C-alpha cells in the first residue's frame, strides 16, 4: 500500500489536457453539468476521439481500446467533464461494449463495434418492465424462436434515450418453462424494425429522457443473440457489476462542488457573499470533505476492476449507496443556494441545477435500487 502520486498518471493528465485544449471545438463545449449531450455533438466528438486513437477509452487494447488503466480512465473522464466536453455514448462504451468484447462472436463484434467507434450507432438498454423493477428476473417480454428469427413481444419501460437510439440491447424470456433467471436471453435489436413503438415518459424535471418501448411481433435475426440462449442473466450480472464506479458519477460530483464554490462567491445576502457566512461555508466544506472520501472510494472500487469476488462486488454496492446519497444532498443544497431562483423553472442563475436535482432522485432507483444494493451488501458481506 502506498499513496505516492504516480508521475506517469500526472503526465497522462497533462496529455489529456493538452489534447482537449487543442482538439475540443468551442461549439461542442457544454455548459450544463451532467446531462447527456445532443446526438450530433456526441457523434462529432466521437470522431475526434477516434482520430486520436482514443475511440474506446475504457476498453483493453486487444478490443481496439486505449488499454488505459482504470486510473487513467478516471483522469480522462474528469478532465473531459472539467472543460465541458460532450459526453460519450455511455450505453455503448460502458455497458454494451464490455459485453460484446467478452461474449460476442467475431461476426457480431465486427457488425457493431466499428459503428460505435464512428459514433454512428447509438444504443439504449431494455431491461426494466412495468412489473419488473427491483425484481428484474420476473421480466415477461418474450422472444420466441421461429426458424432463423426471434419474434419479440412485450414492453420495456424507463428506457433512457430510446427515442434517439439506433439499436437496443435487451433481455427477453426465451424459455417460459425455465426457472426465473434461467430462461432469459440477451438480444440486440435494430430500433427501426417494424413493430417497435416508442412512447415518451416525461420525468419530474419536465424533460424527456425516458420512454416506454413496445414490441409487437418484432422479428429479430437469430444471429443477434449474444451468448447462448438462456445466458442473459449471467451477462447482465457481468454488465451491472461494471456499473458501480460509473453510477458514482465522480466527475459530476466534482462539478457540483465547483458550482457550489462559484455560487458561494457570486450570490449575496444584501452586500455579503454567501461564502462569508459561516453557515454556508461549513455546509460546503462538509460536502467537500465527504466528496474527498467518495473520490477515494471510487479509486478503491476501480482498483478491483475485473475482480468478481464478494468484497469487490459489495464495495461497488456500498459506493453506489454513498455516492447517490451524496448526489441528492448536494443538488438539493445547490438549489437551496439559489435563493428565489431555486423556485423558478427559468432562473436567472443556476439554470439546469433544479433539473439536475430532480433528475438525481432517480439515482437511488436506477441501476438496482438502493434497497436492492443494501440486500446485496448484507448477503455478500454477512451471508444474510
Amino acid at each position, binding site marked *: 500500500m502506498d499513496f505516492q502520486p504516480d508521475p506517469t498518471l500526472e503526465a497522462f493528465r497533462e496529455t489529456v489536457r493538452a489534447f482537449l485544449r487543442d482538439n475540443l471545438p468551442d461549439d461542442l463545449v457544454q455548459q450544463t453539468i451532467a446531462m447527456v449531450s445532443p446526438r450530433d455533438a456526441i457523434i462529432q466528438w466521437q470522431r475526434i476521439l477516434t482520430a486520436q486513437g482514443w475511440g474506446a477509452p475504457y476498453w483493453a487494447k486487444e478490443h481496439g481500446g486505449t488499454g488505459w488503466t482504470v486510473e487513467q480512465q478516471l483522469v480522462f473522464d474528469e478532465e473531459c467533464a472539467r472543460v465541458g466536453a460532450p459526453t460519450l455514448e455511455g450505453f455503448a462504451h460502458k455497458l454494451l461494449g464490455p459485453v460484446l468484447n467478452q461474449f460476442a462472436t467475431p461476426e457480431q463484434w465486427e457488425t457493431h463495434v466499428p459503428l460505435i467507434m464512428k459514433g454512428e450507432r447509438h444504443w439504449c438498454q431494455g431491461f426494466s418492465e412495468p412489473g419488473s423493477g427491483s425484481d428484474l428476473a420476473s421480466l415477461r417480454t418474450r422472444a420466441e424462436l421461429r426458424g432463423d428469427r426471434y419474434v419479440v413481444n412485450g414492453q420495456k419501460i424507463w428506457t433512457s434515450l430510446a427515442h434517439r437510439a439506433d439499436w437496443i440491447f435487451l433481455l427477453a424470456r426465451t424459455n417460459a418453462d425455465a426457472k426465473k433467471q434461467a430462461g432469459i436471453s440477451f438480444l440486440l435489436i435494430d430500433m427501426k424494425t417494424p413493430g417497435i413503438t416508442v412512447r415518451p415518459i416525461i420525468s419530474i424535471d419536465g424533460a424527456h429522457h425516458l420512454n416506454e418501448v413496445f414490441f409487437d411481433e418484432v422479428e429479430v435475426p437469430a444471429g443477434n443473440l449474444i451468448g447462448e440462449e438462456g445466458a442473459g442473466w449471467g451477462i447482465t450480472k457481468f454488465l451491472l457489476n461494471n456499473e458501480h464506479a460509473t453510477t458514482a458519477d465522480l466527475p459530476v460530483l466534482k462539478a457540483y462542488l465547483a458550482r457550489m464554490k462559484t455560487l458561494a462567491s457570486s450570490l449575496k445576502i444584501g452586500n455579503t457573499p454567501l461564502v462569508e457566512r459561516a453557515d454556508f461555508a461549513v455546509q460546503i466544506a462538509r460536502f467537500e470533505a465527504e466528496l474527498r472520501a467518495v473520490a477515494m472510494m471510487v479509486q478503491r472500487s476501480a482498483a478491483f476492476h475485473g475482480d468478481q469476488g464478494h468484497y469487490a462486488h459489495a464495495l461497488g454496492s456500498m459506493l453506489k449507496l454513498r455516492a447517490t446519497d451524496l448526489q441528492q444532498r448536494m443538488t438539493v443544497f445547490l438549489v437551496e443556494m439559489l435563493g428565489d431562483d*431555486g*423556485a*423558478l423553472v*427559468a432562473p436567472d442563475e443556476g439554470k439546469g441545477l433544479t433539473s439536475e436535482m430532480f433528475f438525481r432522485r432517480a439515482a437511488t432507483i436506477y441501476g438496482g435500487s438502493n434497497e436492492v444494493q443494501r440486500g446485496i451488501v448484507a448477503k455478500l458481506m454477512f451471508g444474510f
Partner: protein
Amino acid sequence: MDFTLTAEQQMLSDSVARFIQNEYDFETRTRLVAAGDDDAANWRTFAENGWLAVSSPEELGGFGGSPIETAIISEQFGRGLVIEPWLGCAVLATQLLLASGDTAAQAEWMPGLCDGSRRLAVAWSEKEARGVPHVVAVRADGDARLTGRKTLVLGGVGADAYLVTARVDGEIDARGGIGLFLVKAGAQGLQVTPTPLQDGSAVAALTLDAVAARRLAGDGLAALEQALAHAVCALCAELVGGMERAIEISADYLRTRQQFGVTIGSFQSLQHRIADMSAEMELARSMLFAALASLENDDPADRGPVLSGAKALIVSAARSICGQAIQLHGGIGMTEECAIGHYFKRAIVADALFGGRTLHDAICAEALQAELTQAAA
C-alpha cells in the same frame, strides 16, 4: 390548548377537503398547470365559501377567524397541491394590508379581497433578500416613484395592485428607511413578467422604472414581518398536509405494487421507512402547532426564532419525506404524470419562499446568542 377541531373548524376542514376531492383531483390540477394559469372559477368558489375572508376581521367584511382557520384551509390545499395564489393573495397580501394599519387602503381594498373580485399581491423579495425582509434595493424617490426589481411575487400574475416595499433611505440592508407602497397594475413603468415555478404555479417578477405609487401609513417593515409570520404558518400548514397526503399515496402504492411475488408493503425495510416518515410528519405537525401558538400568543419580537425554527424543520421534513415517497414508488415516482413527485417539487419550492433553511437556522442561532449574552450581562 385544545387540539380538537371545533364544530365550525371541522365543517371548514370538511368543506375544503370536499372541494379538493370533487373538484381538484390530480388530473384536474394537471390540466390547470398545463393551461399555464389558475382558474378564475376556483377563486370564485374560494370566495363564495368564505375562505378568502376567513381570518379577516368582521368589521372589514371577514369572518374574524384566527390563523388556525387559515392553517386548516392551507393544510387541505397542501393535500391537493392547489396552485391558486391562496398563499400570496389570501394570506400574505390580506394580512399585510391588515397589518399596515392604513384604514383608507383597507376600506378601499378589503371588500374586494374578501369577495374575490379583486386581488392584491406583495412584492417584497429581491434577488439579494433571500428571505430577509429588510434587504431592499428598490428605491422610492421623494415623489413616491419606485425603481428597481422585485422577484417571486406570489399571485403577481393578474393582480389588480401590488404592495411593494421600497427604500426611502439607507443602505441595502439597513433595518430603517423602508416604506410600504401601493402600485396599481398597469401603472406606467411597471413591467410584470410571469415566472413559472417548479411546482406548476405562476408567480411574477416586477421591474419598476419610476413607477407612481402611494405610500401606505404605518411602519412598512413591521407590517411586512407580521404578514410574513402569517404566511410562514400557512405555508407550514400546507406542507404538513402535503406530507400527510404523500405518505397516504405511498402507503397505497406499497399495498398494491408487486415485486418478487408479493406486495412491496410486505417488506420490513419499507414498513419501517414509512413508519419513520410518519413520525417525522407528526413531529412537523407538532411544530406547526407550536408556530401557531406563538403567532397567537407571543410578542412579535419573541416569535421570530419560533417561526424560523418551524420553517426550517418543516421544510426539511417535507423535502425528506416527499423525496422518500418518490423512492418508495421507484421509477413511476420519477414521472410527471405520477402525483407523488409534485409533492416533492412543492417542498423544494417551499424552501425558496420566505427564506431558506440556512437563513432560518441562522436567525435561531442569533436569537440564542442574544439571549445568552443578555443573561450573562
